[in-house]
């Protein structure tokens, strides 16, 4: 089955459905087989009782993990209406599904063994990427609405119609295949891969992943950084705070140690990313700064510039930070804050006035 793959390094996004010599590939697939090292990573359970598949890690010739593959041969339902599926499934190194491949001459099928169309494969790939599909809360027996039956054209049998609420979560006419594949790519294997990668990632590759454009891989690398290493990776951390997804920003802001925040230079650099942060990250950052013993001028200025954009709770945290910096509010700052509290467009005028008064 492995020989069915066409492999290239690295994973390349295939924007459209790939079809060649009656084979199908979709997603970010590794190609150019000769330059990859395959190694059995672990066994994982399939959807049916007692079913076990092999997860294989794929590495480049330098030993860098590229992703994972599993070759699947599996039934999808308990009656004779469904054909066995044969395909290869791929995951990236963080454990997220990245694509599938069907070998030449093979095909996924729908009811009455009708072959998947190009659109069906595209829809399947789209559905498999949704980790939060409604399928995640359904048992197999809930796939079919027992009150609605459809007649098989090829076999003398009746079969159930897809439950209406699942219509958009499956390829039409292929509920069981969609369900089986979704649970294979989004089942226990996700966390098994994540754990395996964390154990087998080289430091060099981890460092490269910190700058990955794939947020899940970046988070995985961030989780492997120890608190003692944060200072050495300040540049990467700043880049993440400027450019990554909120989840990664929130993760690193919470992970930074007290001693990191007590360093004036670190404070200043981190606070300069404030405009690039999402709301929750801003709250986390302010929560960290309000716990420090000393606040630098540059930190204060960076936060002051953002004052008009703070939420009410963030404004209150800002005043706690002000109190670390100034026992008594400086006159020029008081005047500036008063001016803001009188601005027509500022939403928290009376709260700001009270905070100034209570200082």
């Amino acid at each position: 089955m492995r020989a069915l793959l066409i492999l290239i390094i690295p994973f390349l996004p295939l924007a459209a459905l790939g079809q060649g010599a009656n084979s199908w590939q979709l997603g970010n697939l590794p190609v150019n087989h000769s330059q990859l090292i395959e190694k059995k990573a672990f066994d994982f359970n399939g959807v049916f009782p007692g079913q076990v598949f092999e997860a294989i890690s794929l590495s480049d010739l330098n030993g860098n993990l590229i992703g994972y593959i599993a070759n699947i041969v599996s039934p999808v339902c308990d009656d004779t209406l469904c054909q066995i599926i044969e395909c290869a499934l791929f995951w990236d190194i963080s454990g997220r599904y990245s694509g599938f491949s069907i070998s030449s001459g093979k095909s996924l099928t729908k009811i009455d063994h009708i072959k998947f169309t190009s659109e069906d494969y595209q829809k399947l790939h789209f559905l498999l990427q949704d980790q939060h599909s409604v399928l995640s809360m359904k048992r197999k027996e809930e796939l079919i609405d027992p009150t609605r039956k459809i007649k098989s054209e090829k076999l003398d049998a009746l079969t159930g119609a897809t439950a209406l609420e699942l219509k958009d979560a499956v390829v039409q006419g292929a509920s069981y295949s969609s369900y089986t594949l979704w649970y294979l790519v989004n089942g226990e294997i996700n966390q098994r891969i994540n754990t395996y990668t964390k154990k087998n990632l080289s430091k060099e590759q981890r460092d490269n992943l910190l700058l990955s454009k794939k947020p899940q891989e970046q988070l995985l690398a961030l989780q492997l950084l120890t608190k003692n290493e944060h200072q050495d990776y300040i540049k990467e951390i700043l880049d993440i705070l400027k450019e990554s997804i909120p989840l990664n920003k929130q993760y690193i802001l919470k992970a930074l140690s007290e001693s990191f925040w007590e360093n004036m230079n670190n404070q200043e650099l981190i606070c300069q990313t404030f405009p690039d942060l999402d709301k929750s990250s801003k709250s986390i950052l302010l929560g960290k700064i309000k716990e420090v013993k000393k606040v630098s001028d540059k930190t204060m200025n960076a936060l002051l510039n953002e004052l008009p954009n703070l939420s009410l709770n963030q404004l209150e945290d800002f005043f706690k930070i002000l109190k670390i910096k100034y026992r008594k509010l400086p006159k020029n700052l008081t005047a500036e804050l008063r001016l803001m509290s009188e601005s027509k467009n500022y939403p928290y005028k009376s709260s700001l006035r009270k905070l100034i008064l209570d200082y």
Partner: protein
Amino acid sequence: MHKNLLYIFSILLLLSSCSSSEGTLIEAESFKNKGGWVVDPQFVEQMGSPYLMAHGMGIPVDDASTDITIDKSGSYHVYARTINWAPGSWEAPGQFNIHINGESLSENLGLNDNWGWEYAGLIDLKQGKNELKLIDLKGFNGRCDAIWISQNNVAPPSELSELKKWRKKINSEKETPAISKSYDLVVIGGGIAGCAAAISAAEHGMNVALVHDRPLLGGNASSEIRVHTLGIYGKFERILKKLDTKHYPNGSPDASMDQDKREKNVRSYDKIDLFLNWRAYTSNTKGDRITSVDARHTSEGKTMRFEAPHFIDCTGDGWIGYWSGAEYFYGRESVDTYDEGWDKFGEVWSPSVGDDAVMGASVLWRTFTNEAEYTFPEVPWAMDVANGYAAKKGTWNWEFITVDHHQIDDGEAIRDHMLKAIFGSFSNVKQQEGNENLKLEWMSYLLGKRESRRLVGDHIYTFNDARENREFPDSVVVEVREVDVHYPQNVYNDDIPDFLTDAMFYHAGRYYIPYRSLYSKDISNLFMAGRCFSCSHIGLGGPRVMLTTGQMGAAVGIAASLCKKHNVNPRDIYNDHLDEYWDLILAQE
């Protein structure tokens, strides 16, 4: 010594001069005719009082009116305690006006960005009866807490603790409620858990007070919030079928049918005294025991004391435990606290460092196609929140989760954020071709909360209890529903509106909740049932739905009856009377 006496005398003189100031305080929620305004008691602990709100969905609501009696004719200054709930560079959406005897006061109200007194105007009033009206100007959730009428042009205090004292003085309110009632058991909170607790206790011979701060029973399942019940019945099917809902779509008006059933069933128990529209505001303790709970009527303002040997906290927010000094949890524990990690979802499932981004509250809403074209007013104050999103209805995943907002302390801000999300998204969908006749049919103004304070019991129920299908000698609650934890969609993409969430489902199979999670570990006579039971954040993910919380209620109702029989505390039921407890549970099935 002489100087000190003089000082004390001066202070007393000052205080007496304050208390002699003339004026009439009218609590808005006590208006005789509320017109289209609704009583909102959700945020009493944060802003000080229930209030009237003009929940018109863009159409000004009918006037609220009441009569006031003035002792002496003359010119009076009128103040209203109100707020601009959506402050910014636009016209305030919740503006209203006061009319007295048909005359409009000079100032529109609802303009300040915080709860406080706004000047409404000066007016001549006649001696005797005068009619006062609240006129909604915008239809967008204007709110009025109280009106102060005085010949002195001095606003009452705005600061919350001062205001509380002032109110007490003006209303001549005593420290202790004038009326006390004694029961075998007091259940506070009339959601599904509270109703089930009251029923099971009543069936076991207890005289029960069921105290609830809304006019309707059912909490999140009520026709005011309209979330369908989920989960299984466990050993309490007979009781829970009196209270549950059909699996209608969330937000459906079908909720009213189940409402009728629930009300009828609870009222059929002679041993349950139902106190609707009573909101508990404090508990009184002696040592580690609660002796009574005080509650206030949400519109009439009168107070009542409820005494009992045992109490059940079904408030959802764990208020009774909180007031009594019970230990409680709030927030998401770090993944290592209870080893609750699930790598499939990693950080969003259980964070490396704990935080307060708990599951949020939903506000459900729906639209319909009107016969005629309908123009929805512009809502510039909602557009930042809607963030370009367009929708015709809202369901469970309209839920605001952020570390910046606390589910209790910031409850009103969360609700208002959801109002902006709804109005803004509806406004956006109205711009799309084909939606000319679309109109808002219904939207709740009550938060459908998922998570809040969790009171700590002898057992802290965690994800591992579900994941490992742990059975306990006191597994009084059983569930098979997935462990279902939510997170904000925008953690993956900041462009997604912040009011949309996604769910993570862990299929755990059958799992059990022990009785020891249903009573406080440090308040000796306090049970809890509902989302404030003893659990971790992830532990709550499965059992937070209403048939499961209903099982909790039914289970502790029976335990309370044994406490009465043996004159013992909840913990003693587990230690010394577990077999008898099981016999009673199995006998009632």
